[in-house]
């Protein structure tokens, strides 16, 4: 048509583009080959710098070229004076900016920038910080930039309170950002530590205050700041309850203090001439410097974990030299020293007694309540209230339900048991993909409650039948239990940890789906195992039982194994001590 602008057709454009690409490729390949041959010949000159620059500006992810560039720069450092080096590195930073524009998430570029910044004779950290800010404002989850920024902050000693303001700003513009929440969780304990001394890092000059390393500090935050954080994070999860990042931060806020490392129980048995020691966390007793003193005499003993599978375990046992405590008329005093910590625990075995122990119970340690927090109950109570309000508005929100459960556990695990179970039921329905996780978590809580009940009743019988258990845990807390009833649950195995039940005499586990008895291993006092209606199907499954010397009664009715021919004779061979076998 008249006057119309003529435009190249698509075919023409394509063809031109193809030619263009070919031309580019040729240049690229030629430059690359030139670089490689120069590097091979050990040439570190300006031309090589230019060539690599040319290549890297179109492809900043070419790690070999960055390496070559670093070689050249390091060489230049040796031949130029400081001002020239400064200039070269400044040019390098400028070049890197253009690479970051090509690919803001290039590993090579960010790594190289860190390298250059660290070598720059007179670094301009303020400029680097503002570069990070600009990058993060374009993509607030660019973890390369987060990493680099952390380095810049560390090198330049930015005060912690400034950094906290920085997270305020980022969270304010978009709170779906794990990086900023997490960063906050590392800053708060530094700025507002739990300890009573007043915080002062903001007043110190930046040079003299490299942020104290987190290891030397508690990870807890003072209560006043905690309350502010609760408010902040509530604003986030009320605004968008489906956003995980806020909930995870909230979990951290509610999180408990680290448990003190200690020996929580020492048990001694005269019959077996054996000592069992339980720790507050899994340890490797062979390497932590454990020392057993019997009546003032250090003993040379060999510590072993309850199951060969464990290098680290909360329970360790050792056999005393034969005859040392076998005389029932003697009284003995035992001390176990944990020389590394250092801490120790005494235990007296009185005349006429066959066994003795000394321990902190789970109730003493507030072990399960502190799963969430050791903060004031009133604070937790008001947190529970807000979550309940949210739950009223969003009855099907899984994060809210889960948090309510955790808060209830922290406040009163037994008192809220019924509500907790109901919430678990809802959780399994609304988030069926994770129903197994919820079942396991629920099992854990039910076991904790049962332990508490057992301890309040001051008995050594642990009974938790018909509670839909899918897993077993906290078995180190059951070291002293003589009788366990796990009937009518959904257990599939008695795991290796089960071997921590060193005092167990009777094991009831009818009506489960148990296939494996791996943990019924070297239980010195075990006499009776009831396993009706389970899924034991081969003789090999029963193999571990052979290590239990006192086993007399075994009920295997309703298991597939009973269908095997000549099973009786095979069992008699495997378990000669069993006198009463029910098939």
């Amino acid at each position: 048509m008249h006057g119309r602008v003529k435009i190249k057709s698509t075919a023409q454009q394509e063809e031109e583009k193809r030619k263009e690409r070919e031309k580019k490729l040729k240049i690229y390949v030629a430059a690359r080959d030139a670089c490689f041959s120069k590097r091979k010949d050990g040439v570190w000159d300006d031309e090589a710098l230019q060539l690599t620059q040319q290549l890297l500006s179109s492809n900043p992810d070419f790690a070999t070229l960055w390496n070559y560039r670093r070689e050249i720069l390091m060489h230049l450092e040796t031949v130029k004076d400081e001002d020239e080096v400064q200039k070269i590195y400044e040019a390098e930073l400028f070049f890197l900016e253009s690479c970051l524009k090509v690919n803001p998430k290039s590993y090579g570029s960010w790594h190289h920038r860190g390298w250059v910044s660290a070598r720059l004779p007179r670094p301009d950290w303020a400029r680097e910080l503002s570069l990070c800010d600009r990058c993060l404002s374009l993509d607030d989850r660019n973890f390369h930039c987060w990493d680099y920024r952390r380095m810049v902050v560390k090198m330049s000693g930015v005060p912690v309170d400034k950094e906290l303001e920085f997270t305020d700003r980022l969270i304010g513009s978009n709170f779906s950002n794990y990086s900023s929440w997490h960063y906050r969780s590392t800053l708060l304990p530094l700025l507002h530590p739990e300890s009573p001394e007043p915080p002062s890092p903001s007043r110190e000059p930046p040079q003299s205050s490299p942020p104290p390393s987190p290891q030397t500090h508690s990870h807890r935050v003072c209560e006043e700041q905690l309350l502010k954080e609760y408010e902040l994070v509530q604003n986030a999860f009320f605004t968008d309850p489906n956003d995980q990042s806020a909930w995870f931060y909230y979990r951290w806020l509610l999180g408990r203090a680290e448990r003190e490392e200690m020996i929580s129980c020492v048990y001694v048995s005269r019959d077996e001439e054996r000592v069992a020691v339980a720790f507050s966390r899994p340890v490797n007793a062979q390497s932590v410097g454990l020392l057993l003193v019997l009546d003032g005499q250090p003993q040379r003993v060999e510590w072993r974990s309850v199951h060969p599978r464990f290098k680290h375990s909360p329970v360790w046992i050792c056999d005393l030299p034969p005859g040392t405590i076998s005389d029932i008329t003697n009284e003995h005093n035992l001390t176990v020293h944990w020389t590394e910590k250092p801490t120790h625990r005494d235990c007296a075995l009185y005349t006429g007694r066959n066994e003795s122990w000394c321990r902190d119970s789970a109730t003493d340690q507030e072990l399960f309540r502190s799963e969430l927090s050791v903060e004031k109950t009133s604070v937790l109570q008001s947190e529970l209230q807000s979550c309940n309000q949210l739950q009223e508005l969003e009855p099907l929100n899984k994060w809210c339900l889960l948090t309510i459960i955790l808060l209830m556990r922290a406040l009163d695990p037994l008192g809220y048991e019924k509500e907790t179970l109901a919430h678990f039921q809802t959780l399994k329905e609304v988030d069926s993909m994770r129903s197994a996780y919820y079942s396991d978590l629920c099992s854990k809580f039910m076991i904790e409650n049962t332990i508490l009940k057992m301890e309040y009743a001051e008995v050594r019988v642990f009974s938790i039948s018909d509670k839909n258990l899918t897993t077993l845990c906290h078995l180190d807390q059951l070291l002293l239990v003589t009788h366990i009833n796990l009937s009518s649950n959904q257990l599939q195995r008695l795991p290796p940890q089960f071997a921590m039940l060193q005092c167990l005499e009777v094991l009831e586990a009818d009506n489960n789906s148990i296939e494996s008895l791996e943990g019924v291993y070297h239980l010195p006092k075990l006499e009776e195992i009831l396993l009706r209606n389970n899924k034991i199907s081969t003789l090999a499954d029963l193999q571990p039982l052979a290590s239990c010397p006192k086993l007399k009664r075994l009920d295997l009715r309703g298991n597939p194994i009973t269908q095997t021919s000549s099973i009786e004779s095979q069992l008699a061979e495997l378990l000669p001590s069993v006198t009463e076998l029910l098939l």
Partner: protein
Amino acid sequence: MAAEDLPSEFDVIILGTGLCESVVAAACSRVGQRVLHLDRQSYYASNWASFTFNGLLTWIQEQQAESQPDEVQDWSGQVEEGEDLIYLSQSDSSSISNLQVFCYTSEEDEEDDTPNTTEEEKGGGASEATEAADSNKEDEEETEKQEAEEQVAQDEGAEPEADQPCPSADPNQSEPVKKKKISLAQLVKEGRRFNIDLVSKLMYSRGSLVDLLIKSNVSRYAEFKNVSRILTYRQGKVEQVPCSRADVFASRQLSVIEKRKLMRFLTSCVEETEDQQAYNGRPYLEFLSDQQLGENLQHFLLYSIAMATEDTPTEVGLASTRHFLRCLGRYGNTPFLFPVYGLGEIPQCFCRMCAVFGGIYCLRHSVRCLLVDKDTNRCKAVIDSRGQRISCNHFVVEEGYVDAERKQTATPTRCVSRAVLITDGSVLPSDSDQQVSMVTIPPVEAELPSVRMVELCSSTMTCMPGTYLVHLTCQSVGSAYEDLSPLVTRMFHTTESSDQEERPSVLWCLYFNMVDGSGLEVEGHDLPSNMYLCSGPDGALGHDHTIKQAELIFQKILPEEDFCPPAPNPEDIIYDGENGNGNSAEGEELKDDELKDDEEPKEQEEELTEQEKEIKEQEEEIKEQEEEKEEEQGLESEKGQGLETEE
């Protein structure tokens, strides 16, 4: 300019450079039509124009001047056989009325010998005259103080024009040093920093204008800023309306429960439900109150997000809520964009597009009459203001050029009430003094309409640093002054305000009414069949009405053609000689007509280029300053942004 004749033949002649006409011009030119685009004014964009402060003062004078009676000339000599003559109206002052100007600051920096209130015009009564006198008194006092301060400053050898408060001017002075008001003289001196729009609109980030700017690539000619916050006026206080997720999170005035309810409402109303349909025809307010949202949220949702009134039906309220939400987050935390240098840029951008594709522009050039074929009722040609006969196939004209008796408009005539304020502070000060705010204001008194207010900061390049440009708009009930001044008195400090509250002061303000362009009917005009009427600005916030109208007109002119397809990249355009060898003869032949990108036809365009040069110089100067500033701000530099199709 030498009075050189225009070509005698065009495909489309367009009269008026308002938004609608300019879009039609760009669309026609883009697909190869020969376009002649005229405007009788010396500026672009008709009633859509933006003026510098001085330009606005001139415009005010023009509006107040008695319109000249049409000098009727006899053009019958040019009429050919079988043709009728239709005369066009030669003035359009009728679209602006009730113009009133108030100045609340001193005329000059130091002396105070002239009355401050340059209130002129019919509406001004005795009461206002006394107010003016009051304001004089106050200003006198203030100026005295200023003089004293300056005296001290000079004694100390400081720069007299330093506008920071003078340190320890008077030890006996107990009250804090008052910030010195910017004088009228300063406003005039800095007048070029202002770009004051006659129309106050915002661009919905998913509205038809933004879509068109992106689709046509016209967006490359302009820059845009996000409206940075939505405010509302409630119980005598200005509050921020939390509308995005980040706002809701950060809001201090909402409880966490309200936050949840608001977020839930906003997410749920995106989908249409049966529950909502049950409310069709019933007020949106009723629907909202049944959602148990509480009064706070109800206010935000009704007035600020749906921008509705108490009797807006539910389906309308929901539709505009959805539109608001769809626009949210495309370019920022509010649904709106504002063009840097003012809304008057937008029609000019389309004109530029038209010119790039060969359209010819003449300002201060009009059409006197049309020559209409009696048999076909088609406009065959026009006679321009110089008496030249120019043939055309289509004639597009802004309605203001057409006599009232020939067009169909809604009766009674609908009007928009406007106020333009230059103030010295934001209605809601915040950390940043560079906020662009949209303020929704429900009726402050019974009988008064609800008002839309847009507060622009200096980084939008519409006002000088240290000032804010405030546009108020509402559907007229009475005159602009009657409709808007009660609100101005409440929200700002003027001489009429009684109390001493901390509020921004109005330095200067203008009230006027403009005819609401949406009153023009689509059909039923007594006009030739190839003549198309474009309406002036309508009262709505967005531009949908105008863009839709422009597209409709284009489709009538060229039913087969694509409306504003993307302009090609400059590198894809084939220029003469580029593929020359084979078909040189043809190439020669086409040469004269062949269009070159960005090489605009020169002679007829002198007016445009001269004016443009001037504008460009100004712009460049301002832009340089802006860039400097942005460099200082560092982070901010990403924010002035172009439109992109990607998000």
